[in-house]
């Protein structure tokens, strides 16, 4: 039972993470390859602040604010780039951030990681049990879902899609595409940080090794598989993928196979990305009015 609760918490956190990436990739067509950096900013900011005795609520808000600011600062120059280059620039940002976290020992304890991150408490309630934490992260996931759905359904959301599908047309229509992209990127960064904050306070230990390209690929696969540019896509993707990942543990494989499991699973992830892109770019759940094969 506890394991299911644990998985549910992980799914909730990854749902938030995937929803945030979906805003960028699915709705705006921004290929963010350093998305895990914002997850890390949230995790580290909140962890460092709460470890020094500041209340969780402040740590949480600070994490979101800092991630939003970094997203804003990065997006101004990076968004001048075309798709592929934007991807490379953000990838670079993600790697540099990980190096900074790993090397600036005075601030982040470096490779030692941060043990003993306190359990969150809001309004006097401490979330230190699995059901309690599930309530918190599930609630946050629902809130994220609601907020982002609202954003996407608003005229702003429709404008985003217009920008994604045809930038020139969007410009002619008098919509400032550049500004829309920046807003979208900042929103994505803030919610990625929310997932990071929840992650840090759940595991109570973080280290630079948690924030690698592999994480970005996992969350990318969640979005792509679920269906980019849809409401339910990231949610469905997170449930399916996390369950798939963990169900492998129960196959009771002979130990000599286990060594091969890690690479094998990653191979499957890679194949899934290819297969979806070649045969069903729109993912499990198709975007309404979306153009097929695009």
């Amino acid at each position, binding site marked *: 039972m506890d394991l299911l609760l644990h998985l549910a918490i992980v799914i909730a956190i990854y749902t938030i993470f995937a929803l945030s990436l979906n805003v960028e*990739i699915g709705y705006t*067509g921004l*290929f963010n390859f350093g998305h895990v950096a914002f997850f890390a900013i949230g995790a580290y900011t909140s962890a460092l602040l709460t470890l020094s005795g500041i209340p969780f609520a402040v740590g949480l808000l600070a994490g979101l604010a800092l991630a939003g600011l970094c997203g804003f600062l990065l997006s101004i*120059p*990076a968004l*001048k*780039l*075309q*798709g*592929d*280059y934007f*991807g*490379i*620039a953000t*990838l*670079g*940002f993600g*790697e*540099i951030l990980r*190096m900074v976290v*790993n*090397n600036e020992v005075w601030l982040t304890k470096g490779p030692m990681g941060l043990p003993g991150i306190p359990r969150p408490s809001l309004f006097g309630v401490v979330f230190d049990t699995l059901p309690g934490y599930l309530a918190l992260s599930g609630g946050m996931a629902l809130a994220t879902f609601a907020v982002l759905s609202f954003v996407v359904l608003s005229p702003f959301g429709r404008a985003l899609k217009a920008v994604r599908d045809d930038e020139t047309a969007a410009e002619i229509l008098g919509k400032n595409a550049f500004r829309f992209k920046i807003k979208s990127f900042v929103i994505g960064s803030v919610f990625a940080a929310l997932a990071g904050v929840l992650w840090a306070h759940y595991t109570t230990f973080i280290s630079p090794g948690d924030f690698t*390209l592999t994480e970005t*690929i996992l969350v*990318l696969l969640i979005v*792509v598989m679920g269906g980019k540019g849809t409401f339910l896509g990231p949610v469905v993707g997170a449930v399916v993928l996390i369950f798939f990942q963990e169900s492998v543990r129960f196959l009771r494989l002979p130990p000599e196979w286990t*060594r*091969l499991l*890690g*690479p*094998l699973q*990653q*191979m499957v*992830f*890679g*194949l*899934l*990305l*290819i297969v979806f*892109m*070649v045969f069903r*770019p729109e993912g499990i759940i198709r975007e309404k009015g979306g153009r097929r*094969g*695009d």
Partner: protein
Amino acid sequence: MDPISYYLQTALNGVLAGCVYALFAMGLTLIYGVLNFVNFAHGELIMWGAYFLFLFMGEPFGLPLYAALPPALALTGCLGIAMDFSVFRHIRRANRLTLLIAAMGLSVFLRNAAQFFWGAEVRTYGLEVTAGMRILGLTLTTPQIAIIAVTILCVAAVYVLFFKSRLGKSMRALSDNLDLARISGIDTKRAILAAWVISAVLAGIGGILLALDTNLSPEMGVINLIKAFAATLIGGVGNLWGALLGGLLIGLAENLGVLFVSPSYKDGIAFVIMVIILLARPYVIIGERSD
């Protein structure tokens, strides 16, 4: 060691690293020029090239180095064609995002396939370790001399092929305008195939040189992919000479950086240069394309 040769030796290390980066960057740039997308799986061509040689030098083949080279490079070329045939051919007209994600998937797949077959540990070709020669107070080993010689050869070969042959002409026509090239009766299929083979073989050669000089590991592709990207960006995408220059610059910068900055930021230096270049001239990097 006197200070002058200390810096010179560092510069030499930088040039050596830069030569290999240049080989990677040239292949990357070529594919970008012809097919207009960034092949995120280029790093895996580098890595598999090195592992193919490992395959032929080990059991059951047990070939010596010179005999194992041709089949290894041939297989790397085939891998390049296989990439196109199995994935990219189907999504030629798809949007960038689709191409990029597919290439990413391919990269993840191939990297872990190598780990699946050979394990995650670092491997060597098992050649005898020899002390380098001393030339003017600098040390150079045989593989390092090979790196410089082979790079010069490759650059010359690519130059001849690209600017002096019919095939090169058709490739350049393709990179200028695909539809126009098609209309004017150029065999686009053949040109695309050639681009993949050349790109893969260059990556394979670079990977093998790097592994001869250092070691093999499944991660070697990804790490070097970023450097190749940075080199391509400095030189201007689609520009072969730029790729060469960019590679050398990145190699020098990161090696000199170790002396002046912290070594732990060594890989970061390429990133920083890349980001600065991106920010400084975001519209120029599209190279000489006119679409």
